[in-house]
């Protein structure tokens, strides 16, 4: 059975190889092949899942050792896989959502002549992501980690002819690299501390190492997580990443890749449990990002960027939960899965809207679309309800549990975190309602685009709507299914560990409070965008709004400090290299030239001058001999 694990990865990898090397002759069937292999991977996943369910709680972890990757003395990196409940969850999420989005893309990318390559990249991403979650040691995880980074780079920059897209792709890769730096340092630390970096030994013996080491490793892992999951301070790339095709945003920048950080932290739970300080930092980062993303989401008029902001903030929730330790890991993953459903659904919905509106992304130019694209409206609406945590839907359960866990952290920390999460819930309700209203309600505000095409909104083809419907189902029922009878907790407990945190206030109170803030947020949004017409051109807005529109000036900071500073540094260094380092050498050469010029004067060609020098030379020689004899 465990031999199937490699196939999980092999299938999409094969697809990528064939599609990317295949050449034009595959253009006709490329997308089908890609989808087929993604689906195949999903089927294998399901098979393995059913097999896993068949076995008892602790015997569920499977191992597969393929070959020894980098063997150098004590440094032994293997290509080996570990499939436990945590990995399983991800495998199903990745392959499932991935397959759906493959199907969706068939329709969405229909008019793109490079569709074959697009599917190649998607398959590549699936392979890398699966490698990431299936690796049984940190170095192999790093392999997948960078692999998904590459795939996201290729996919964000898929429309390379757009300079903005190319820049966004580069930015994403670079910011991720900063995170990867953290991961690589973490791996080195593990190697020097434990002499290995395989999950089993490292996580098994975290107790023996000093807490300082553990904190260092934890913080480095967190840095990596921040890069991949767009957490403050490395969040700046996610907004620009929306330059990519919408299915990409849905799959990579909403459902799967950006949640890799959460996976990393949960997977390394043992390390964080041994390093409370690191845990605290994790929580803080989560809380800050949670609000940051929410605020940004409120101000964006670009529908995808608004959703990106929300993604950021939702992942903030997960990171925060993961930072809470054993009381939070499970809920983090649970929210991750539900979020995978509804956020993917929302993105696909947004994509469908854009599809119908000549790729217009400005929500101020939408309005009243519910009549024109009913399916999209319904699925998007369900997703919306799910994300704001409407009772009974997925988001309600998962988010509610996180909020409880936050309170359960205990002490003032608990209160602060709890209130932050509540505030986040309120803002979430606000900006999602805003998106909903601006897109589907009110009167139509759309206008001809620069080419003079009057958009005539229409429902998207089946290949796009069906995935949306399936995801909508997921976003409605998944949460309930997981939460009732603590199914999910029991499922993951053997891997992540779990102990129930006692909140200072009863669960009911928390739920109530959540409901209240939720209604408040939604109502406020309705007051602002539902009742009065939405101006087509954005009003100047308050200082905060303007800051939020610019991602709270974080990009400007980067630009001024990093980009400008870097440019100056490199330019001055180029100058130094040319003048100083090179100049020294050339200077020496020049001085030698001058010296020889002076020496040339002695060579006047008169025999007698040479005779004198000879004579002097002899004299010197004699003197030397005499001295030697004397000494």
């Amino acid at each position, binding site marked *: 059975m465990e031999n199937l694990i490699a196939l999980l990865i092999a299938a999409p990898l094969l697809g990528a190889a064939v599609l990317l090397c295949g050449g034009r002759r595959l253009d006709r069937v490329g997308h089908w092949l890609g989808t087929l292999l993604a689906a195949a991977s999903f089927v294998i996943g399901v098979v393995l899942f059913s097999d896993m369910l068949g076995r008892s709680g602790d015997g569920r972890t499977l191992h597969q050792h393929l070959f020894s990757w980098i063997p150098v003395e004590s440094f032994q990196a293997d290509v080996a896989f570990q499939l436990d409940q945590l990995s399983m969850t991800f495998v199903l999420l990745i392959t499932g959502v991935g397959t759906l989005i493959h199907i969706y893309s068939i329709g969405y990318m229909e008019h793109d002549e490079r569709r074959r390559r697009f599917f190649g990249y998607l398959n590549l991403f699936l392979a890398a992501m699966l490698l990431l979650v299936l690796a049984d040691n940190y170095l192999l995880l790093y392999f997948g980690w960078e692999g998904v980074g590459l795939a996201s780079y290729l996919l964000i920059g898929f429309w390379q002819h757009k300079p903005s897209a190319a820049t966004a792709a580069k930015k994403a890769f670079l910011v991720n690299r900063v995170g990867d730096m953290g991961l690589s340092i973490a791996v080195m630390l593990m190697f020097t501390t434990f002499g290995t970096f395989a999950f089993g030994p490292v996580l098994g013996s975290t107790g023996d190492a000093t807490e300082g080491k553990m904190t260092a490793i934890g913080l480095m892992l967190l840095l990596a997580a921040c890069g991949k999951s767009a957490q403050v301070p490395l969040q700046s790339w996610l907004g620009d990443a929306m330059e990519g095709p919408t299915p990409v945003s849905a799959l990579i920048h909403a459902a799967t890749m950006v949640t890799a950080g959460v996976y990393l932290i949960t997977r390394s739970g043992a390390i964080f449990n041994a390093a409370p300080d690191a845990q605290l930092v994790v929580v803080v980062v989560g809380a800050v990002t949670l609000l940051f993303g929410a605020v940004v989401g409120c101000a964006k008029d670009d529908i995808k960027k608004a959703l990106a902001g929300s993604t950021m903030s939702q992942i903030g929730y997960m990171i925060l939960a993961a930072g809470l330790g054993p009381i939070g890991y499970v809920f983090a993953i649970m929210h991750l899965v539900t979020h995978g459903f509804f956020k993917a659904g929302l993105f696909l919905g947004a994509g469908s809207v854009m599809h119908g509106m000549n790729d217009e992304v400005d929500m101020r130019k939408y309005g009243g679309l519910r009549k024109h694209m009913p399916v999209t409206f319904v699925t998007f609406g369900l997703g919306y309800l799910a994300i704001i945590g409407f009772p009974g839907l997925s988001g309600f359960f998962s988010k509610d549990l996180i909020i409880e866990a936050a309170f359960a952290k205990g002490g003032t920390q608990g209160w602060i975190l709890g209130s932050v999460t509540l505030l986040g819930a309120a803002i979430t309700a606000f900006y999602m309602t805003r998106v909903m209203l601006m897109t589907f309600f009110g009167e139509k505000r759309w206008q001809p685009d620069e080419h003079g095409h009057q958009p005539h909104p229409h429902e998207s083809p089946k290949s796009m709507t069906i995935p949306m419907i399936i995801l909508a189902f997921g976003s409605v029922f998944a949460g309930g299914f997981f939460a009732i009878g603590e199914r999910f907790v029991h499922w993951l407990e053997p891997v992540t560990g779990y102990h129930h945190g006692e909140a200072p206030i009863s669960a009911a109170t928390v739920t109530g409070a959540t409901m209240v803030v939720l209604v408040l947020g939604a109502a406020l949004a309705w007051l602002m965008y539902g009742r009065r017409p939405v101006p087509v051109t954005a009003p100047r807005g308050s200082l905060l709004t303007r800051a939020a529109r610019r991602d709270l000036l974080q990009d400007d900071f980067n630009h001024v400090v990093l980009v400008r500073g870097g440019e100056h540094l490199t330019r001055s260094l180029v100058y130094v290299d040319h003048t100083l380092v090179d100049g020294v050498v050339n200077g020496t050469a020049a001085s030698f030239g001058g010296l020889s010029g002076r020496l040339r004067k002695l060579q006047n060609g008169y025999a007698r*001058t040479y005779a*004198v020098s000879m*004579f*002097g030379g*002899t*004299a010197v020689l*004699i*003197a030397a001999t*005499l001295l030697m004899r004397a000494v």
Partner: protein
Amino acid sequence: MSTLAASAGSLTSVAAAASTTSTGEAVQFWVLGTVAVIGALSTILMKKAVHSALSLAATMIVLAVFYLANGAYFLGVVQIIVYTGAIMMLFLFVVMLVGVTAADSLKETLKGQRWLAALCGLGFGVLLIAGIGNASLDSFTGLGQANAGGNVEGLAALLFTKYVFAFEITGALLITASVGAMLLTHRERTERAKTQREMAEERVRKGTQLPPLPAPGVYARHNAVDIAGLLPDGTASELTVNKTLKARGQIRDVSNEAIADLKALERSSAERLGRDEEEVNS
């Protein structure tokens, strides 16, 4: 000379390890040594090459004497015969060939050359002397045994046994040298010699000096090559003297004195014949 040789001989026949030589030799050394040094200095300081050559010859003779005094009879003689006799004469020949009287100025043309030379020379000499100074051994074995069988025989014995190869090689060297000297000085005629006729035609074509050059000298009492022949008006003709002599400024101009002699002759004859000046002038 022979006395010197004798003294030297008596000296060298003294016991093997002596520490000092006879006072006679000492005196001789100091006297002749001074001469040698003066000769050497004048060699390098004389303006005219001839003088340098002569003073060098003097130095060499002195050296010959010293050889004898040092028990090198053969070398002493050879020194006089070969060096002073042959080589220096060769020098003189060449000097004559190039021009005896052409005195070259001792003005130094190369900047700083003289100072450098002086400096180096001084330092060098000092060093040599210092070197000898600390190489000097206060006692010396004379040539008593070595010259026992006669100096020449001793040399010969060595020369034809131990140094025979060197000897042969030097012989070869000498031959090569003479041949080389011939080659160097010999001038290969590049074009066919002109026949007399051609020369004549050439002269005519040039139109200058058709008849042969006038012979030097006038009247039987003056026929030396260095005296210009006189033209009918009594002035000297440049053509009559060899260019080389002219170049060296070695022409004796006798035209005026010849005329003066003529006058004196006429006057005396007039006196004897008892004529008076008027007649003479008329």
